[in-house]
């Protein structure tokens, strides 16, 4: 079991096992290390592979179930590799007041997917978000770490087309 997990870990990305060890060493002794470590892993890989749980658990004296419990509690953490880009559409009240529902429908239609899914070409993963702090310029969306306000359907479509054409952000 342990061995197959390690094999999977190796297949995540070249040099990943060493990188994981390095991140664990970097974070394990800071107070409340788990969230910062999970963030660091996701920053590196864009998601948190389950194969990393045993090592994390061991380093922080937790059970694998506890690590799993924390990862699954937080909406931000992804357990599967997302598409090259992540598009977040704000669903909260201020954006609703400015037509976010139509944007959501349009994005789903353009990409032929629902929330938490990735387009077939692996270009875009669609996620809901509850406020981006851009409520004075609702409706708002975020593509990777770039934020957009007063977004029209045409703007959204252009963003999606652009994402389909471009590589992942470094």
């Amino acid at each position, binding site marked *: 079991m342990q061995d197959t997990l390690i094999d999977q870990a190796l297949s995540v990305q070249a040099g990943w096992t060493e990188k994981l060890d390095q991140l664990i060493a970097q974070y394990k002794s800071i107070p409340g290390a*788990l969230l910062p470590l999970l963030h660091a892993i996701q920053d590196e890989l864009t998601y948190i592979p389950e194969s990393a749980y045993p090592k994390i658990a061991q380093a922080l004296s937790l059970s694998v179930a506890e690590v799993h419990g924390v990862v699954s509690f937080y909406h931000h953490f992804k357990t599967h590799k997302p598409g090259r880009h992540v598009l977040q559409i704000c669903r909260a009240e*201020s954006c609703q007041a400015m037509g976010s529902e139509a944007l959501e429908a349009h994005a789903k239609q353009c990409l032929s997917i629902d929330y938490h899914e990735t387009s077939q070409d692996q270009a875009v993963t669609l996620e809901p978000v509850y406020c981006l702090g851009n*409520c*004075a310029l609702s409706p708002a969306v975020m593509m990777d770490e770039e934020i957009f306000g007063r977004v029209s359907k045409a703007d959204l479509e252009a963003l999606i087309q652009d994402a389909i054409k471009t590589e992942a952000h470094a």
Partner: protein
Amino acid sequence: MLNMSTIVYVPRDSSALSVGAEKVASAISQEAAKRGMAVTIVRNGSRGLYWLETMVEVATDKGRVAYGPVKAADVSGLFEANFLNTEAASAKAHPLNLGLTEELAWLKQQQRLTFARVGITDPVSLEDYLAHDGYQGLKNALALSAADIVKTVTDSGLRGRGGAAFPTGIKWNTVLGCAADQKYIVCNADEGDSGTYSDRMIMENDPYVLIEGMTIAGIAVGATQGYIYLRSEYPHALAVLNEAIAKAEQAGYLGDKILGLPYGFNLEVRRAAGAYVCGEETSLLESLEGKRGLVRFKPPLPAIEGLFGKPTVVNNVISLATVPIILHKGAQYYADYGMGRSRGTLPIQLAGNIKQGGLVELAFGITLRELLYDYGGGSASGRPIKAVQVGGPLGAFLPESQFDTPLDYEAFSAIWAVLGHGGIVAFDDTVDMAKMARYAFEFCAIESCGKCTPCRIGSTRGVEVMDKIIAGTDRVKNIKLVRDLSDTMLNGSLCALGGMTPYPVLSAINHFPEDFNINDATV
């Protein structure tokens, strides 16, 4: 003028970036280079007049002259009109010319205390901060005893701006009174409420004021470590805070010996991970400890047993960022603003379907109507404003008949509403309040930490019942069911997520019965 470089301000605030500020900044530098003109672009914060972003300002000896809203495509036309020479007739006649920024009525009528520097300075420049009254509060605090710092905060009347409006000085006094080998200052920067962005603005546009406020808090209660728990949706704030913290450390404003004195205060930003409930202070502490964000039972209060079991001050960004001006100008100066038991100013955030959305800092007491129409300019769509939700997703919806309510904690409680974090979301008459009530339950179901049944199960049940009401099935019976469910949630929830979801739900039914296809709210 000729060979001097003109200073041009282009905001780096993320809302300004969301409508193209980055492109505007590069268009200006390219166009200037092309024309062989010397400009120095300073990336300031936003003044918070968001409908005018990207607002470009040109420094003159009379003050800054603003142009907005500027798109990258407007830039060559601005140069054509000689916009850098603000005295030129062509610059004055340009349709985007707004005149002197400080003379804009929207800004001039505000009482900016917490936001005094926002939009004026370069956020990450410590020199700029110091040149604009920065660290004057700390300087005064260092001359006081710990108890007197706490007393100053108490006397100012400052109440927590994160939602619960608990007196900040009283909370600090509890922590001061605890003997412990380690205490903490935790800044709640989870800002999850829709319609709010004042925390984001402070962190992106004047990070040092928060750092200074936390440092004063640390010295006051004897805490040497601070954490800023920052929502993961704010990558720009993260970058600015980290840069500002590093500079403050270098300059000796943070570290084991602040300014060489025997006070230590270290500060670290910790990223949250997209759970709304982690804005609740005990859930936040669990999360900081590396756990799932399950709400804790109280007592013990976090002030007594908080982070890692140690005495901890948990305060909102705005509460902490208001401390420097209180220590700088004195408790009375701050307390002189406001009404009743709501002292000082509130940074109000206008959002939703509003023509002129942005940050309005004013003394408590202004009415919703003044905010919505005098500042907001009415709805963005031009249709009548039907409802506003104040205080985030757990706040009540208010109808037109309540728009004359003054912004005051007690006046809002009296109409079964809350001010919360000061966000005001406007809806025009196309809103369907039954859908909003359904959404309130849905949001609670998505974000519930799961610890108590009324919240976990009740919210999901609420969505189902609202679906029936919207579909027109047994309306009267189902509305009674929603009221019963709400009662259970109000009385049986551990925290305000479950306990206040009934506010938006019941206020929607009570004030807008027609949207539920019932004739009156007595059902």
